């Protein structure tokens, strides 16, 4: 199996989840942008692998991201980027990737020069308080479970749609998968940041191979539509459960987006 792909997949998650964990909005935004660049690298590597008949999968190791401070994160990311960079071969694609990653390292090293960039990380303190809102125990439990379930689900959707996109021969399908991936990236970002605010951030579990190595596309799409409908129901339920107008509005907003996902998926049938 392709070691570069596995490392790159893990690196993307490490940078993405660091962006959720860090509170400073400017650094958070920059890390998120970097994670998006790394995600594009991942897409290009999967496309290269398909052309070169190199098998890849979504296996990943357990990733410990429970760092105590911003500086711990920056040092961790620099080490991880260097480890991944050392695997690249002599190809134009990897020259581009290496250059991007060198810049990310440069950015992180600069942050380390200024102590005011260091802050304690609260994303793992397990306090389960969302932006000082007072929620009942049951509402907090409902929100906690929803965020864990949906964070995994969005991650799974991103990876499954990316896999399907890499193997489709239709331009129309390619574009639909891209829309679905983009939508899920936004949802993952939203839910990941909420998990961090509640102090319960964690990287989702491994995706089982049978989920993305699809043999019956119509069944896959129909099951996906059912899942989107279930996710919609969960959003509606949660919006009614959390006694907070701002959170309720947010879940209604997400719920409405799921409607359009269903329409996009129907076009794939």
């Amino acid at each position, binding site marked *: 199996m392709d070691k570069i792909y596995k490392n790159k997949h893990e690196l993307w998650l490490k940078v993405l989840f660091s962006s959720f964990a860090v509170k400073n909005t400017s650094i958070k935004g920059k890390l998120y942008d970097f994670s998006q660049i790394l995600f594009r690298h991942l897409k290009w590597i999967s496309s290269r692998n398909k052309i070169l008949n190199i098998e890849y999968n979504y296996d990943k190791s357990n990733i410990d991201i429970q760092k105590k401070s911003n500086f711990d994160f920056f040092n961790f990311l620099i080490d991880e980027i260097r480890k991944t960079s050392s695997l690249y071969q002599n190809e134009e694609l990897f020259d581009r990737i290496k250059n991007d990653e060198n810049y990310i390292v440069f950015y992180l090293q600069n942050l380390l020069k200024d102590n005011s960039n260091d802050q304690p990380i609260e994303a793992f303190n*397990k306090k389960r308080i969302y932006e000082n809102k007072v929620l009942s125990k049951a509402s*907090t*439990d409902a929100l*906690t*479970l929803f965020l864990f379930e949906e964070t995994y689900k969005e991650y799974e959707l991103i990876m499954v749609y990316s896999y399907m996109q890499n193997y489709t021969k239709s331009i129309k399908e390619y574009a639909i998968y891209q829309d679905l991936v983009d939508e899920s990236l936004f949802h993952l970002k939203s839910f990941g940041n909420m998990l961090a605010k509640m102090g319960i951030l964690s990287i989702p579990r491994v995706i089982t191979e049978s989920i993305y190595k699809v043999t019956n596309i119509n069944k896959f799409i129909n099951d996906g539509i059912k899942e989107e409908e279930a996710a919609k129901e969960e959003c509606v339920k949660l919006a009614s459960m959390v006694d907070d107008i701002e959170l309720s509005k947010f879940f209604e907003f997400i719920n409405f987006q799921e409607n359009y996902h269903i329409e996009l998926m129907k076009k794939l049938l």
Partner: protein
Amino acid sequence: MLKKKKKIQYLEKLVKYLKGNVMEENEEIIPEVNDIILEHLMNPRNYGQIDNCGCCGIGYDDKSGEFVIVYMNIEDDTISDIKFSAQACQDTIVAGSMFTEMVIGDKLANGAKSALFVRDKIKEAPLKQRACTSLVITAFEACMKNYENRALGIDEELHKTKIQESCEIKEEKQHG
């Protein structure tokens, strides 16, 4: 290996989680999250697979398509290693994480007793949580069956067992 006191605490927390609480707002039953459950949500234990395992079992729900695979290595009738993977929801992952943590290092017979105990304790849990937990327990029991079959010289790569109660059927009936 967990000590007996910790194991009982685990079981109590798991059962409490699965039975859940009724929300005043809309009478929905919500699984109860506590410190131990939170730890398993954030870091599921024993998730993955064992290459060249000693035995393997699958518990599956043919209506929902969900399944759990349990992999074990057995040494001197003791569960020396256990892992699970799943295509299922979060409650299944929590149940799998806690159950495997409970039985690792245990004698097989004790593992079987723990499985029966959990089954019995979750009888009053909502259907969804019963089905989720059943996927884990059924996969564990299928894995033990595979171990027995292999010991008898039967050529069986893994043992598959369908769970008795699918959450999907009942939900359809309830909606209908």
